[in-house]
Each structure stands twice: as C-alpha cells, then as structure tokens.
C-alpha cells in the first residue's frame, strides 16, 4: 500500500496514461501563462527595448546594473516594506481579537461572521473607492467625526497630505483584510484541544500562560500560512493604492507594483521593466524559500 507524504492512501489501480491525461490540460495552461512569460521576460531583460528603440541585441547586464542606480525603485521597495510591516501585524492582532470574541458559542454567530466577511470579498478597487469617499475632505464622514471629537472643524486631506496618506492606505487595507485573518484564526482556535484547556484551567494557569504555552504553539502552523499568504499579497499591493492615491502624492505611496506599472505601461521601458520584474521574482523566491524552510523546521 503506497501513501503520499501526508499519509493518504493512494489508489492502487493506477491507470497508466489516465493520470497523465488528467493533469495535462491544466499543466499546459500553467506552463503557457506561468512559465513561458517568465522566460520571455528574462530574454527581454537582456535586450534593450525602450519606448523609442527596439534593440533586440544582447546587452548583458545593462538593465540589471541600472537597477542599483534607480533610486525610485528602492524607494518603491521601501514603501512596500513599510506597508507590509505595519499592516500585517495589525491584521493579525485584530483578527486574533475578533476570533477570541466569537470563539465561544453564541446564538447568531453565523450572522455576525457572514457580515464581517463582506470587506474581504469586495473588489479592492471598491474598497479603495469606498474609503476615498469616507476620507473626502468636504463630504466624507471621517472628517466630520474627527471634527466632532476635536471640538472644532478639522481639515484632513487624507489622500494628499504626506503624513496622512500612509495611515489612509493602511486603514483601508487593514479594514479589508482583517476579516480574512479573523476567519482563519477562528478556525484554528476552534481546533485547539478542549481538554488541554480544561486541564490548564484546573491547574490554575493564568490566561497569558495558557495563551503562550498552549494556544500559540497550537495555532502556529495556521498563522504561518496566513502570514505567508497575506505577506505576499501585501507585497503585490496595487488596486487599493491605485484607487486611493494612484501612487501619489508624487511617488510617495508608490509601491513596487505601481512602479513596475509606471515604467512598463507609461514609459514603455520594456527591457528595464523586465529586469525589475525579475528582481521582484527573485526577491520573493528567496523570501518564500526562507520562510518555507523555517516552517518545515517548525513542523
């Protein structure tokens, strides 16, 4: 009896060609759209195709050298890292708190959960647009609420004021994706062994001790996956920023995706864009591999 790595029993009647036939169409599409463009991109990155010039001769590392001299690129990466570093922990903590709130049975919990999921299933463009409306200086409710608490009319230009743009983006992003963390953590927390918690209760352990020594280790695998997925998504963040600030003011909120868009589709700096794209892929691959390796160790 053969099993795969997860211990699932494998079917014995392995019809030889059938199994390859089944995966063929899917793999084909993936190759077409996944690998082929990457290779094409790699080739282009070694050429010198710009808006004005179509020079397909081999240029060596011309474009890659430019990567290091491009300040705007590294700024973009910095912006991306900033957003990720702030939004991810926030989403995690808030999601955890929400999960704790709804963990124990309560009548009507289903309804609450269904409603709270809504921000996550919206198009990020809709989310960005919504918050743009909310933040609007003249007729958005946020301004009015803040003014009410401040006691005097306050003018907040969320999408223009340099010190407010990042909070605006992060608020919108956290608002949209905390429910995602919430659902994941709710499932994970529900799966913690009840009897361990009861034993700890009888042992007289404080909430913090239980959290630290029993709950955290138990949900670590789920948290790791959540961080990986959301982390990657945050790295690629595009829609929300497009809707809120379009990368502005200037290029203050330009993340790496936005920057790639700018050089690729407004400046048509084809080869350079390809090089940037490759840098991004390489960077992500390294990060993901490192994280996965750490996860394997944890498991």
């Amino acid at each position, binding site marked *: 009896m053969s099993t795969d790595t997860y211990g699932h029993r494998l079917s014995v009647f392995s019809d030889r060609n059938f199994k390859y036939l089944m995966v063929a169409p899917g793999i084909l599409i993936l190759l077409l759209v996944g690998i082929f463009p990457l290779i094409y991109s790699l080739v282009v990155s070694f050429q010198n195709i710009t808006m004005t010039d179509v020079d397909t001769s081999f240029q060596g590392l011309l474009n890659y050298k430019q990567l290091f001299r491009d300040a705007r690129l590294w700024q973009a990466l910095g912006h991306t890292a900033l957003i990720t570093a702030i939004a991810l922990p926030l989403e995690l903590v808030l999601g955890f708190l929400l999960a704790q709130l709804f963990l124990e049975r*309560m009548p009507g919990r289903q309804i*609450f959960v269904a409603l709270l999921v809504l921000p996550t299933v919206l198009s990020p463009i809709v989310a960005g647009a919504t918050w743009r409306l909310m933040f609007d200086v003249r007729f958005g409710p946020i301004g009015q609420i803040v003014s009410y608490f401040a006691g005097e009319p306050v003018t907040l230009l969320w999408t223009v004021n340099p010190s407010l743009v990042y909070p605006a983006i992060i608020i919108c992003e956290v608002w949209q994706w905390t429910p995602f963390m919430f659902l994941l953590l709710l499932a994970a927390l529900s799966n913690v062994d009840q009897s361990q918690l009861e034993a700890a209760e009888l042992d007289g352990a404080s909430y913090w001790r239980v959290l630290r020594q029993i709950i955290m280790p138990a949900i670590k695998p789920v948290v790791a996956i959540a961080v990986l997925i959301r982390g990657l998504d945050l790295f690629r963040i595009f829609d929300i920023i497009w809707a809120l600030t379009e990368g502005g003011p200037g290029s203050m909120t330009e993340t790496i*995706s936005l920057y790639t868009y700018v050089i690729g589709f407004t400046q048509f700096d084809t080869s350079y864009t390809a090089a940037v794209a490759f840098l991004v892929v390489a960077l992500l691959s390294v990060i993901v591999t490192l994280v996965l390796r750490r996860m394997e160790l944890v498991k």
Partner: protein
Amino acid sequence: MTALTRRQRRALTLAMRYLIAVAVTLLFLFPVYWLFMISFKTPEEIFHVPPLWLPGQIQFNNYWVLFKDGDVVAILNSLIVAGTSSVIAMVLGTFCAYSLARFNTGGENLAMWIISQRMIPPMAVVFPIFLIYVHFGMVDTFSGLILLYTAFNLPYVIWMMRGYIADIPLELEESALVDGCTRWQVIWKVVFPMARSGLMATAVFTFVFAWNDFLFALILTRTEVITFPVQLTHYMGGQSNFWAKIAAMSVLGTLPIFVAVTIMQRYLVRGISLGAVKG
C-alpha cells in the same frame, strides 16, 4: 460588591460579548453602509456639507444612469469572464487535483511547483503576457482574459481540491471500481457528490478572485471587454457626479459576489482557510 454566581457571571459575559460584537460589526460595515447611501443620494445630498447621514429619500437615479449609458455592460462582461474562467478552472483543476490526490502524479515536485505558481506576483508576468497578447492579437478579447484568469486560478483550485479529494475515503471509490464502474464514472458518481461542499467553496472563491481582479483587466482590455473594476476606475478623477456613479456601480458590482458568498456561507470558512488548517 456581592459575588455573582457563575450563571450570572456567564450571562454578563455573554451580554458584553454581544455588545462588542454588534459594535465591531457596525464599525466594519459602516463604510459599506456609507457607499450604499451615496448610491441613493442626489448630487446635492452627496455634496452637502456637513455630510448627511441618510438620504432624503431613496432614489434610483444613479443606477438608472448607469443602465442608460450602457455602463452596466461592464457587469455583464465581468459575469461572462469570471463565470467562464471559473468553470474551466474548476473542471481542469479538479481533474488535476484528483490525479494528484489519488495517484500522486509527478510526486511532491509537481505539487510544489503548482503551489509556487500561485506565489508568482502578477506584476512580474503581466508585462510579458501583455507583449505576448499583443503579438497574438489577444488584447481586449474575451478569450484572452478568460484564459488568463483560468491560468491564475488553477493553482488555487488544484491545491484546495487536492485536499478535499484526499479527505474522501478511498474505499468508496475502490468499491465502486470493484462493482464495475469506469474511472470516469467513479469520479462523476462518487467523488463529485462527496466533495460537493469543497467544490462549492472553491468555486465561489475562484469566481470572486476573477471578478475582483483589476490589474490584468486594466492592462489587457481596452474598450470591448471592460470589466467591472476597470469601469469603476473610469469614474475616478475627482469630478462630482462621478461619485454617484462610483457608489452605484460599486453596489451593482458587489451584489453578485455578496449573493454568491452568502449562499455559500456554510462552506466559507474552509475556503478562506485555504487548506491551512488541514495541511
């Protein structure tokens, strides 16, 4: 203060939880509520300073304008593109997943490669894909966009369905095979019904991913195949009555998703868990 009995304490805690739950839910849904309200307001009401919390009366003019100008076609386009690509992705992906789950085709390497495909940042491939599409004249075509969404949803479908299929006891299939069914019959009669909830959850999420996509739609469409998110951005530019259109269009575009998700709510938690809890 007199000590409370356990039952009293429990009741109090529950009451507090409810209070907080309601407050939190209202807080989270407030922006959506605001969007909704704007879609019903007249331009004067929208620009009222200070902002009005409720419209004077519910008027559908903003929606009507969308229909009149034909902008609603974006919703239709999204339906076609997201729907078709989801169906194709589900079919191809589930078969792939079955092969992987039951026969371990390609071993761990293939599985790893497929999962890594999901981690490819779209931005890295959108440019070369754009170039390829231009070359083949696939820009601004339905089939082009559908192909793309199918490809990008495949890894997710395969990953999820593999897990769901693996959870189905092998004995069920084997007894069917022994009873004389062909492999196709087994898949159709045994696997699909048993994996129904997994199929539903995954299908909904595939649909949502395709529906909400902006980047590819932006770059790979022009005028023929405008999808909902792209149409929405056409209204952005700071002009006043466009806010009304943004709100109305947003509501229209979110409705199908909301309906689908609410119906599938039972299966939702597993879908979003992305197999994490099981894996």
